[in-house]
């Protein structure tokens, strides 16, 4: 499959050197991506020429800012196949998931009235997640269960970290009110069988929440085609700024889910003791919005769209194989998850989390860092999956559009030396 052209010149940070002048090999994009000039310029342009409060005031700056802010929303909507008013800006993907879970908790105590009744959960109801979730898509649901008396259940994973779907009907039952799962694992890189999971959720009338943090930056994603109810993403993994993420929700759901952050810009009429909400998306965007960041996220999806998400996907697949195969072939190194994807599952991400026999992940990371190679060490906010694998943490390398094969080769070469350095090589 064809690689993208070398995009590194678009990313100013990639030109810097680290640890005594070594060129940077950035393989931590799964944690956060680097930003192209286009994104930095979009934010700078906003602050330098158009900064003003949005959806308020009638002066020129306010008008321009509002227009840019809402145009960015339309760009992000188009990027995931949604309508503009189905996109809510949030601080990051974690907050987007909390928006749904906390909204459901509020509905459960009567906030939003009968209009919000479909979001209520309580004793006897079940909330289902999976064993491969990032903490962001686990803890909000634990807490929803704790607050409402509903029961948390989960889909287990097999030795390779694949969700076990054979017994799906016994895990996702008529009692299930919401099924929250990841589109792609940030540890194994496995892309989930969204079709199977959504079909089951629909069969039992459960809402679906898709954590698309790791998929949206790397694969074409269409929320309508996937037919999920909610979907979350984080700009900073999509070449965009920090401080912004987005929630997609089907319009009719967003218009009836109660908000959980309250304040200005969300309301119609406020008296000292009553408040009526605006329609979505504004009912959820309390206070002064992350305006420059939304505009930056708009620029990021434009950059990705200009590359073409099919081309991005092809690049990712090419690197995925090189990376995962390369790591798996190393003696004394255990790759978490399968080397390549199963036929029916489709893609895998260019992510490889692994364990070096006899060397702790922090020590592995340190040696790589000394060579200018940036990877992530630890549990990657996914303790249950690591526990399932029988380990506390792992070392993770992950790629993005600017990653080139030689970055991966540099990693593989350095890894071969790690065991020697710590004196554990055969």
């Amino acid at each position: 499959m064809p690689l993208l052209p070398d995009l590194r010149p678009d990313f100013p940070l990639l030109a810097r050197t680290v640890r005594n002048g070594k060129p940077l090999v950035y393989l931590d994009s799964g944690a956060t991506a680097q930003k192209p000039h286009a994104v930095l310029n979009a934010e700078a342009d906003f602050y330098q020429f158009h900064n003003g409060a949005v959806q308020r005031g009638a002066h020129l700056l306010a008008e321009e800012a509002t227009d840019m802010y809402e145009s960015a929303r339309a760009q992000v909507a188009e990027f995931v196949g949604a309508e503009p008013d189905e996109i809510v800006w949030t601080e990051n993907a974690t907050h987007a998931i909390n928006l749904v879970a906390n909204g459901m908790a509020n509905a459960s105590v009567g906030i939003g009235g009968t209009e919000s009744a479909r979001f209520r959960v309580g004793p006897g109801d079940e909330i289902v997640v999976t064993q491969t979730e990032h903490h962001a898509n686990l803890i909000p649901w634990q807490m929803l269960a704790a607050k409402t008396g509903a029961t948390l259940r989960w889909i287990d994973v097999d030795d390779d970290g694949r969700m076990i779907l054979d017994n799906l009907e016994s895990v996702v039952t008529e009692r299930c009110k919401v099924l929250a799962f990841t589109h792609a694992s940030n540890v194994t890189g496995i892309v989930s069988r969204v079709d199977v999971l959504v079909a089951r959720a629909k069969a039992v009338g459960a809402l679906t929440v898709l954590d698309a943090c790791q998929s949206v930056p790397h694969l074409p994603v269409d929320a309508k085609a996937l037919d999920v109810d909610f979907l979350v993403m984080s700009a900073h993994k999509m070449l965009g700024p920090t401080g912004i993420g987005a929630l997609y929700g089907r319009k009719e759901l967003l218009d009836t889910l109660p908000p959980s952050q309250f304040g200005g810009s969300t309301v119609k009429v406020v008296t000292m003791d009553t408040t009526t909400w605006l329609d979505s998306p504004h009912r959820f965007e309390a206070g002064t919005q992350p305006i420059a960041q939304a505009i930056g996220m708009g620029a990021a999806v434009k950059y990705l769209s200009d590359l073409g998400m099919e081309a991005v996907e092809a690049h990712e697949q090419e690197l995925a194989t090189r990376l995962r195969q390369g790591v798996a072939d190393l003696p004394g190194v255990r790759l978490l998850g399968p080397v390549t994807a199963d036929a029916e599952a489709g893609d895998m991400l260019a992510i490889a989390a692994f364990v070096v026999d006899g060397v702790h992940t922090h020590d592995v990371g340190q040696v790589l860092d000394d060579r200018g190679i940036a990877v992530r060490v630890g549990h990657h906010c996914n303790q249950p999956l690591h526990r399932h694998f029988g380990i506390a943490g792992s070392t993770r390398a992950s790629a993005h559009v600017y990653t080139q094969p030689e970055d991966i080769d540099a990693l593989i070469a350095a890894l071969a030396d790690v065991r020697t350095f710590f004196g554990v090589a055969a």
Partner: protein
Amino acid sequence: MSALEQMYQQVIMDHAREAHGRGLVDLGLPHTGESHQVNTTCGDEVRLRVVLDDDTIKSISWEGSGCSISQASISMLTELIEGEDLEMADETIDAFKALMHAKGQGLDEQREDMLGDATAFVGVGKYPARIKCALLGWMALKDAIIQAQKGAPA
């Protein structure tokens, strides 16, 4: 004519000062519909009532307060739409919306004719924040017609 003068044309100022249809009228008829709209930027409100007689809009009346743009706009729509049939009302509403999104450019002759004096609002299209003001009454009209059609007894 400056952009500001284009926005606040004399006919708009006149309607703003002496608005038509102000004061809710209760005809005690079925097919009466009402809508309450708020401009959330400034808190301006309008409550607009429509009475249908078959396909004809028999009466439009309203109460509310707002800026000259919103008040003049409601006043003009009352003049324009009262006594007309539903099809014509729909087309006029669409034409007015189109005018608002024309960024200060006019529309084709046919639709401008349909809007009559209301084409004077053309200048508002240059000010996105004010479009809501001009549309406030029209949104209420559209919604009140739907309510009236539901046949809610007066």
